[in-house]
């Protein structure tokens, strides 16, 4: 006896619901992503504490004592994690991020990189905390 004969594979209203969820995701992405040409900087934090703020105009490699063996690279297409000792390398595979609101997360290293818009005409190169 098939005990769940009446359960359907999919219904029309399910497709509508899933489409609505996808549309909401696209809307959230559209709202949070910022396509304006403002100056941006990356906030690197470890365990909730801000480690450094790096301007995305200052190309080069950065590493910080708090984030161990991680190397952050700022280049033409944004900031990326170019080296990390974590097992999964998810942070490295995320690649370059450059738009405000985008983030790279490395859970094993408790590290997050988040891109933000520079407030006003404030021209930051690097701020170390």
């Amino acid at each position, binding site marked *: 006896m098939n005990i*769940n004969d009446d*359960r*359907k594979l999919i219904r029309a209203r399910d497709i509508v*619901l*899933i489409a609505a969820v996808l549309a909401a995701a696209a809307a959230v992405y559209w709202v949070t992503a910022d396509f304006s040409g403002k100056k941006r900087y990356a906030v690197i934090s470890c365990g909730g504490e801000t480690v450094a703020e790096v301007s995305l105009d200052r190309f080069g490699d950065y590493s910080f004592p708090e984030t161990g063996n991680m190397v952050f690279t700022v280049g033409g297409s944004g900031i990326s994690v170019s080296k990390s000792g974590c*097992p999964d390398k998810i942070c490295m595979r995320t690649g370059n991020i450059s738009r405000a609101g985008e983030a790279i997360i490395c859970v094993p290293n408790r590290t997050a990189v*988040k891109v933000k818009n520079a407030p006003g005409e404030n021209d930051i190169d690097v701020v170390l905390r």
Partner: protein
Amino acid sequence: MKMVIKFKPDGISASRYTALMGLLFAVSAALNWLESLFSVFLPTGMRIGLSNIAVMLAILCINVPSALLLTVLKACFVLLTRGVTAGAMSLCGSLAAFLVTVLLFRRTKASYVLTSVLAALAHSLGQLCAACMLLKTVSVFAYLPVLTVSSSAAGVLTGIALKVIFPEMVKTFGSTKQIR
């Protein structure tokens, strides 16, 4: 009053139950490994949630406590193979997916695809919440839009797989009469 949680349903012999649970756990462990191969090609550490199939099958053809046992065992497997952080994230994600699946399969007549899509979304949300607590930052939720798309795709695949596999499971192991 003593609460006794019964794992084995009455309509099934002990050896059959052991075989079935072993099989489901092996499937979830193997799919977990397969998933980690897939996630190499995907950015931002997306997990496509294939190993949820085993837990969903357990909810459908065994009972809720057995499915919960499988969920915890799966997290232990991840803990042993991929470390504490991955284990904690897997546990949070799987528990969220488990709750959603139990609610939808036991209380409603929601379709396979809808249930597995919502379970996959819960899985992603649970993982993000775990990451949020571990990192003490809300910026992890920047991944949410991308994860929504990948979870929905994975959910559709899982739902179709369930629809195909479930009748065969019932044929092989027999109905345990646990399902309404």
